[in-house]
């Protein structure tokens, strides 16, 4: 057992190396998911802080580093969304509505695609980020999302179809 762990430790990359390799990918995932660069910045930092704390539990044989980090990023983002939801519900009784900040050219895509992406739900953007932007395979993406592989593929197909429809609608408009 100890020998096995030692052998695993020998093949194990360092956290610094993994962070350096995967930082941009995790940032892209969070950027596409949240559609908010400032929030993506904060969540990226929080994700790596959390990842460092649980680095000893990471098993390279079970998941690629980027998939493991994306799972942590997803959990961090969801925690943030929940907290924000509660906070905004409290605030809306007292504070005046604030205009929603809009970001354009978040991802460096064509304006049509950026606009269509902005109209998708976060869940749709998330699966596009994992499967298309980060090019994770169906197995790894499904593990991050906590769903089956076929459900993940189905979700991707639906997201792409919506994206096509939004772009077509925008073109007609």
């Amino acid at each position: 057992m100890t020998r096995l762990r030692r052998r695993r430790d020998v093949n194990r990359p360092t956290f610094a190396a993994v962070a350096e390799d995967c930082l941009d990918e995790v940032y892209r995932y969070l950027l596409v998911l949240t559609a908010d660069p400032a929030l993506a910045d904060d969540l990226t930092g929080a994700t790596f802080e959390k990842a460092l704390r649980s680095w000893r539990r990471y098993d390279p044989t079970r998941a690629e580093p980027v998939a493991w980090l994306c799972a942590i990023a997803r959990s961090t983002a969801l925690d943030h969304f929940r907290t924000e939801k509660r906070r905004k519900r409290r605030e809306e009784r007292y504070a005046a509505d604030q205009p929603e900040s809009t970001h354009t050219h978040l991802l460096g895509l064509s304006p049509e695609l950026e606009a269509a992406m902005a109209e998708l739900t976060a869940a749709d953007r998330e699966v596009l980020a994992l499967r298309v932007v980060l090019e994770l395979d169906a197995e790894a993406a499904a593990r991050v999302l906590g769903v089956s592989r076929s459900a993940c593929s189905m979700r991707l197909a639906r997201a792409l179809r919506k994206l096509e429809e939004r772009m077509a609608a925008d073109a007609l408009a």
Partner: protein
Amino acid sequence: MRSPDETDVERIEGLLRGVPPESAREAHLEGLIRELRSVSAHAPRDVREHVRSLEPPRRRQFGWKPALVLVPAALALAAGIVVGGRDSGPQREANSGAAALTLESSAQDSRAAAPQGQSFAAPVEKTGRAQEWDVRLDLAVRDNRALSDASAEAISLTRELGGFVVSSNIATDGPSGRADLVLRVPERRVQDAIAQLSELGTITGQQVSVQDRQGDLDRLAKRIDTLRIQRAELNAQLAQPGLSEPERLRLELRRQRVQGLLNQLTRQRSSVSAEVAFAEFRVSLATKRAAAAPGGGRFDDAIGSALGVLAVAAAAALFLTIVLLPLAAIAAALLLGRRALRRRDDERLLDRPRPTPSAGER
């Protein structure tokens, strides 16, 4: 036949793997995929610096897992030392007392007094004088079964040594029990009896008293001799011829008194002789839970007590497991339900363009 969705999924997977498009729509999809893959957003410099500055948490030398074993073991050992120390304190004193059992002597005869610290194992000095022995032994045994065995053994020992049982009273009440034996052992086997009876349990109390009766016997013997001489002289006087009737009657009465006194003193001497011939042993046996075997060290006692504490803890853990198992099942069901609700909540949260409520949604 496959549904359009299934076909769609398979084709999209193919396009992701680099399979060439077969229709205009697939070509459009491939273009979308290619454009999305071109996203090259980089983490800002400050985020990168922040991540680089993260330091790994200080690694603990020992994790918390060894504590799961070490802490209960240490607690059990400590409890064993405390419990063992409390239980074996008087007992240990008794054992050391057994090793240093003193022979209490009556003030009548200072020669029978053994020096302080004389042990059972040390031979009691044989003086050749008549001595009356009274021995009290308080012994602790582990349980009622040991009590019964020790009582039977004590009686058997007494008979083997040529003695007899004066009284025997054995009573048990639940896990505890007590036996009170009064034994008579020939005076010449006193040492053997003390040594062998002491091994029947853990000594918790003892007293040995020796009273010298040789003076009494000597006085009685001297008095008896005097009376016999007087009786012989009276017999001789009565045998003389020519005694008047009143004189004969007076001598006769005097001889009867001497004979009566002689008989009384002879009986008294016999009684004293009988008392010194057999030593009296009052043996009290009592059960004592977790009584350590005689001669065990303090560490052995502590280990034994620690094992006892662990056994009790294990029994309590088993009981709690049985009691808590249904509660644990309910808790697990609640946990699974909570997880399902949380997943649904997550899906609901992500099922909108901006996961947090925007101004327009309020």
